[in-house]
């Protein structure tokens, strides 16, 4: 983990509110499920983004991709960057997915597809059988790269059938907490593994402020874990979900 100056290598609108930003930097390695935090003009906090692609182009030079969906002033700033603009990034942050050599189902709900595209690429490289299902609220939100898509309705409704049809042994997912909670519970019920990429408002991004914690249970012991440093990927069986959601 380091601070890098990233140069905008390419920026491309994917939907009405989502932009693909490709950043050139000296970042040496990155793995799906890891994220970066980006300093945005006139904002107190850096903004975290899942890494959606990573490629080394030469010694000391790499390209990393994030998908930026406009939610407020920080993401608006990033969406309006121009090629060659410079930004400060902290990278790579957190622990990524722990890849298993088993039939894998990848679930990306909304902008949660971002790390799934990178994971799919990594699984393909290792010839691991995988299937990516994405869910979007409507046609306008669609981001390509999936094997199957659900528009409107819940992507979760399709999962039980898919898991059985494709003899899935592990589910990787990213999306709103409510979706991850349902996926975690479904996988528990079907007795298959799940790895879920979680998100919360973060302050430091490196584990010191304890601002983005969740409760987890490991070996019968309940403790807090920071999403930024201990996560963002957690086993669905470990997470203790907050009720009233």
């Amino acid at each position, binding site marked *: *983990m*380091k*601070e890098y100056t990233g140069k905008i290598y390419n920026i491309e609108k994917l939907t009405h509110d989502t932009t693909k930003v490709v950043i050139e930097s000296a970042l040496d390695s990155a793995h799906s499920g890891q994220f970066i935090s980006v*300093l945005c003009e006139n*904002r*107190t*906090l*850096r903004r975290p983004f899942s890494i959606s692609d990573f490629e080394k182009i030469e010694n000391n030079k790499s390209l990393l991709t994030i998908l930026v969906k406009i939610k407020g002033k920080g993401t608006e700033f990033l969406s309006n960057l121009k090629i060659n603009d410079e930004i*400060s990034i*902290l990278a790579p942050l957190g622990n990524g997915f722990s890849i298993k050599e088993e039939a894998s189902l990848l679930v990306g709900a909304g902008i949660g597809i971002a790390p799934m595209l990178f994971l799919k690429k990594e699984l393909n490289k290792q010839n691991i059988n995988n299937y990516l299902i994405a869910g979007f609220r409507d046609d306008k939100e669609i981001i390509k790269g999936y094997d199957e898509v659900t528009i409107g309705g819940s992507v979760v409704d399709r999962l039980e059938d898919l898991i059985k049809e494709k003899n899935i042994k592990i589910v990787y997912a990213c999306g709103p907490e409510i979706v991850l909670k349902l996926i975690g519970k479904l996988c528990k019920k079907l007795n298959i593994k799940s790895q879920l990429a979680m998100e*919360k*408002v*973060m*302050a*430091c*991004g*490196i*584990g*010191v*402020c*304890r*601002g*983005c*914690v969740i*409760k987890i249970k490991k070996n019968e012991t309940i*403790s*807090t874990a920071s999403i930024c440093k201990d996560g963002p990927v957690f086993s669905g069986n470990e997470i203790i979900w*907050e009720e009233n959601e």
Partner: protein
Amino acid sequence: MNKLKTVIKNNKRELILKSPLIGASGTYGYTDEFEDFIDLNCLGAISTKGITLEARSGNEGDRIFETECGLINRIGLENVGIKKFISDKLPILKQKNIDFLLNIAGSSIEDYERLADIAQQNSIKAIEVNVSCPNVKSGCIEFGLNPDSLFNLTSKIRKNYKGFLIVKLSPNTSDITSLANAVESAGADCISAINTLRGLGVDIKRIGNKFIKKTVQGGLSGKCVKPVALYMVNAIKKSVNIPVIAMGGISSLGDLLEFLAVGADAFQIGTANFINPKICTTLAMELKKYIEENNFQDFEDLKTKIKGA
């Protein structure tokens, strides 16, 4: 010669640091968490995460809320507890030669007395007392908001701890000078100020035909609190003779000079670490350059001269 050498002293004790820049409690972890970004040996010190007698898991629910030019947090003193700090963290601080202030917090006077005692037994050079904690025994009113209870608390800690005792004052008061006088007369060596201001973040959205409200109540920090901190440090310095470590929205060389001009002896950097994890060393370099370019002997010389402004 180290031009940033910082002497924080009163007529009884002194604390000598390599630089006047200290990472503020809660923003710097326990030990070497910032090692990936900066050389910790160039730092004046870190103030550790607030340590309580027993480990605490902190608050449930959302803990962070970004405001227009600041940050509200309600972490709830999540920490490993003093026992684990001594067994797991202290050896790292010692081995890596990182100067630190042990930040302590309690929910009763006995908690603080015990923590002070443990600090004494472990020869910890300096402690910073967080008095913005609710006193559970007297109806959860903060220790730090009443001069009498603050005097009592500080005296009890002083009795058990012979090292450099810093009391971190809360700004959530209408009378900061009485609080400052209370800790000075109870034998504190130094004041640090300010802790966070009470604040409320509100997020209100209309979804369909319903309003959805989310609130986060906690401590406000960041650039927006700087004028309050300047006011408080100025008022404290006018009423006590002990040194003051200033904090509250510091993020530039200009901010350092402003705080020096109202009497600060050293600085803590908090929220700005989240924006730029190298800020403490960046500011140290800028300060050194300023000292050299303006022909001051060293930081202490600058401090003396700017106070006369």
